[in-house]
Structures are given as C-alpha cells and as structure tokens.
C-alpha cells in the first residue's frame, strides 16, 4: 500500500487529494482566495463526518438516517461550554466525543434491535428528537442558534483562531480519522463488522454476538462524527438545531454513496464533489437544487459504487 509502484488510480487519487488539501493554503495565499481555503476546510470537516458514517453504512451495513445528530451534538459540546466561558479545547472535544458516545450507545441499544427500513427510520427519529430538544432549550438560543466569541483554546499549544492553523488542524484530523478507520476495518473487530454486514445469521452461528459488535461500531462512528461536529462548531462559530435537520443526514448519506460506500477514501471524494458542486451550481442559478436532485438520481441509477467504483474500474483496465 505504501509503495507507489503498486498504486493504481484509486491510491493515486487518494494521495494526490490529501496532498492537494495539505498544500492548499499555499495556493490560496498566492492567489489571495481565502474563501477557497474556507471551502476546503468545511469540506474536510464534512468528510470526517462522511468517513464516520461510512464506517457504519459502508462497512457495517447500518443505514443511519440520523447521522447529522452527532454533528449537532459535537458542535453544541463546543458551544455550550463556550457560552459559560469554558473554552478549553481538550475539554470541549472530550465532551463532544463523550456525549456522542453516550447518545450513540443509548439510541443504538434500541435502533440496532430493528432491521431494514425500521432502522433507517428509527435513527432518523432519534435525530429529530435531538433536533427538537435543542429547539426547545431557550437558554442556548433555541431555533435561533448560538454564536460563540472564541474558538476552542489548546493551552497555547496552537491557536486555531488563526485560519491556517485551524486549516491544518482540520487536515490532520481528517488524515487521522482515515487512518483510524483503516486500522479499525483491518483489525479483528473490523473483520467481524464486515462479516456481520455480509451474513449476520452466519456470524451468530459461529459464535459472534453481532449486536454487541455493531453497537460498538455504531458508538465509534458516533464519536468520530461528534468530533467532526466539534470542528464544524469551531469553524462556523455558530450553532443551531438546523445542523441536525434530517435533510443534512440525507446529504451525508449522499456524500458517502456518491463517493462510494464501503471504500475508505470514497466518502472524502464524495464530500468534495458534493460541496464543490453545491458551491458551483448555487453560483450559477437559484434552481441549482434541481440539478443536484437529478444528479443524485442518476448516481443512484447508473453509478453504483460512486466515484470510488469508477476509480476501481479505471484501475482494472491498466
């Protein structure tokens, strides 16, 4: 894997994309286009969320329609302490990950007892519950949301108020998230998750309590996404329940499928394609959502495997 001589289209794209993200600040500085840097930072944060969704969706076969809830939970884990002037980033991120884990654990306990479309709908229902819960909490702005004055502080180690520092903080986070998911999926645990996706009944008959493994995987994905939420909260300095709206969960699903569910890097490409297309199309016409919708339908109908599948086919031709 680490030997470029063995690389095919897929590996090249992965390496080049990550390198391009890593070098982007230099180019945007030269071209004085700071907004593009913002765009990529947002893209990378959403990519972390998509990678975490892919862990349960692509690798684990659990179609969660409520993944945006963790983005909201993670974001509010930064926002609520900041509201009380607690700006310690380590603490905020710990809360983001911890709260997401707790939420994932308890909702997973119930959701994972259901199958198929019931699972899709119950995960969505739980996300809606958090959505309405945050709307109902007047103290933190309710539907209006909450603006924070300062980003997370990391005791002088580095300062993410600085755009470039924040950008690299995000970049490192994305690379780390990818590495983490790759390790997990290649570990014994990952084998069980993959096996349970392929044939849950058989996995049980050889002695795996698949429920327990899936629940663990569900919690891990929630934690990673909660972390992404904490980043997004810092990035926008603004939180509102709207972040958890079901349409955002749908968008995350689209990002994963567009990139290629079940592949490690696919979700990153899917997110990139999604965010850039959205930016580009919404600049052209106010009717951009229709183009987006048609594209979504076409991808589902004619491009199973998404971008990653396409790269895989490119690789095979060589």
């Amino acid at each position, binding site marked *: 894997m680490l030997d470029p001589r063995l690389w095919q289209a897929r590996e090249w794209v992965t390496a080049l994309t990550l390198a391009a993200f890593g070098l982007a600040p230099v180019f945007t500085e030269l071209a004085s286009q700071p907004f593009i840097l913002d765009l990529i930072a947002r893209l990378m944060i959403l990519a972390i969320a998509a990678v975490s969704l892919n862990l349960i*969706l692509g690798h684990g076969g659990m*179609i969660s*329609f409520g993944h945006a809830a963790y983005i909201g939970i993670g974001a509010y884990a930064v926002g609520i302490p900041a509201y009380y002037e607690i700006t310690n980033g380590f603490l905020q991120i710990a809360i983001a990950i911890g709260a997401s884990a707790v939420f994932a654990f308890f909702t997973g306990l*119930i959701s994972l*007892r*259901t*199958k*198929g*479309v*019931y699972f*899709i*709908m*119950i995960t*969505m*229902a*739980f996300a*809606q*519950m958090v959505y*309405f*819960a945050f*709307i*109902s*909490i*007047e*103290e933190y702005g*309710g539907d209006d949301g909450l603006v924070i004055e300062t980003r997370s502080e990391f005791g002088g180690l580095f300062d993410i108020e600085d755009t470039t520092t924040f950008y690299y903080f995000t970049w490192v986070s994305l690379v780390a998230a990818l590495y983490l998911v790759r390790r997990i999926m290649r570990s014994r645990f990952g084998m069980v998750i993959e096996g349970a996706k392929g044939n849950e009944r058989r996995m049980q008959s050889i002695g795996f309590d698949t429920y327990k493994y899936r629940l663990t995987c569900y919690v891990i994905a929630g934690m990673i996404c909660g972390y992404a939420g904490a980043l997004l909260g810092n990035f926008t300095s603004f939180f509102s329940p709207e972040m958890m709206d*079901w*349409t955002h969960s*749908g968008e995350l*699903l*689209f990002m994963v*499928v567009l990139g290629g*569910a079940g592949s490690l890097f696919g979700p990153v490409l899917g997110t990139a394609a999604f965010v850039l297309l959205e930016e580009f199309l919404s600049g052209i016409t*106010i*009717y*951009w*959502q*229709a183009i*987006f*919708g*048609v*594209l*979504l*339908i076409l*991808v*589902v*109908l004619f491009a199973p495997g998404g971008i990653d599948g396409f790269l895989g086919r490119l690789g095979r031709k060589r």
Partner: protein
Amino acid sequence: MDWGLLITQVLNGMQLGVLLFLLASGLTLVFGIMDFVNLAHGSLYMMGAFFCATLTEWTGSFVLAAFLALPLTALVGLAVEIIVVRKLYRRDHLDHVLATFGLILVFDTAVQFIWGPAGTAIPLPEWLDGRVEILPNIEFPTFRLLIIATGLVVAIALYWIVTHTRTGMLIRAGASNRTMVSALGIDIGKLFLGLFALGAVLAGLAGLMIAPITEASIGMGNEIIIVAFVVIIIGGIGSIKGAFVAALLVGLIDTMGRSFLDSFLKLFMSIQNAETSAPAISAMMIYILMAAVLAFRPQGLFPPKGR
C-alpha cells in the same frame, strides 16, 4: 376544565390525524407491498395542492378543481413510477432513500420555477368557509369537518377494498408474501404502477385538503412526510388499520401537546421558557412514541400477518 376547548382540540387533533392518514395510507401501501421507501411522497402531496390551487383559479370552483387535480396528481405519480421508481424496486432501501431525496429537490425547484416562491392560496366557496355549531356554543370550521369526513370515508373505503376485493386480497398477500403474488400470475409491474398511482392520489388529496387552510407552498410536504413515516412505522408497515390508528394517535398527541403542554410546563419553568419549549417538546413526543413502540414492538402496532 374547559370542555368546549377540549372538544374543539380533539376535533383539531382528529383533523390533523386524518390528514396524516391520507398521506400515510398511500405510503404504507407502497412501502408494505412494493417494499419501496418513497420520501418523495410528500412532493406528490405538494403537487396535489398546487394543481388544485391553479385549477381553482381557472375554474373558480374549489370542488371542481379538487376533482380535476386528483387525476393530474395520479399522472405525476405514474410518470415518477415509470421514469425513476420502477428502476429501483430491486435496489436496497438506501438507494430508494437517496433517489427519492433527489426527487424532492427536483419537485421543490420545479414548483418554485413554475409557481414562484410565494405559494398560492385557495379560496373556498362560501358554504365551506363557515362554521358548524356541533354542540351548543361550540362551533367548528366546516372545512375542517369536511377534512375529517373525507379522511373517514377514505379510511372505510380502503379498509373495504383491502378486506373484500380481489385487489385487496392481492394487496394483503403482497404485504405478507411478495413472491406469492407473482406466483398467482399477476402482472406485478401493473399492480405496482396502479398502487403507486393510488398512493399519489391519496397524497394529492391530502395536499389539496390542507391547502385551503395553509396555502400551497414549496416544501410543504417535506416535514409532514417524516411524520407520515413515523405514523406508518408506529402502525406497522403495510397495515391500513395501523396507519389509521397511529395517524389519529399522532394527530391527537401533537394537537394536545400544542394546546395544553405550555400550561403544564409552566409548573416547572418560567412562562417565557414554557411558551417557547412547548411546541418543540410536543413535536418531540411523536418521536418518543415511535421509539417506545419500536423498542417493545419492533414491527409496529399492527404488523401484517406472516411478516
């Protein structure tokens, strides 16, 4: 206790309930028999409303427009089935969710393009715009009563179709055993197309019944469709009876929450906080109900037999 208010609110809850039922019944048929998750069902609801609005403007009669709008909605349903949906039956639920999510975007934008962003009001004829005194000193809007009546008639009709006709037999068989229906030599393609159109008509009916109250507006189906899904999951996928019971339950919970929850919350929190929290908490109760039902009955309240 203000009994007049209570009775009015129960009727309001029923009105919301039957509206949800109209939407959910089509959804549960399509879902239960074709195993197809149609998020764009809410778009058909919206199309019904907009068709009716334009036709009311042209014909000058809401009732006439309503009867003309239904076949139009059915046509849209047919087109959607033929162009997109039928290619997806063999795919998994994730593909259904994504493709119909795409359809929602297309429909919403198309409506903005054709009708503009403002939304369109539907004027009601005089005889529907008034009120009926249902009990001494308790008046209720005539049109909302009409919605309740329509919903009940549709519920009875659907129940009769499902339990007493050959089509209904197929529907029941399909809900519990899909392969059996094809073994009976039925053209599954036609059955599905017909059912999808029926679902579209029911959704369109729901849309055009609510539009004179709230106006036809972009994205009007996007939130209610989620609630309709909650309804069919609580009721048990594929079950008309389940959809009916769950729709009324959800309608009543939502309305009662909006009417009485704030007074209740004031016992614990400041008046301002109670006022702002109450609607969100009553919206949340619906999802809590769903989670509770699924935790104890993973197949919903009335799962079709043999499934």
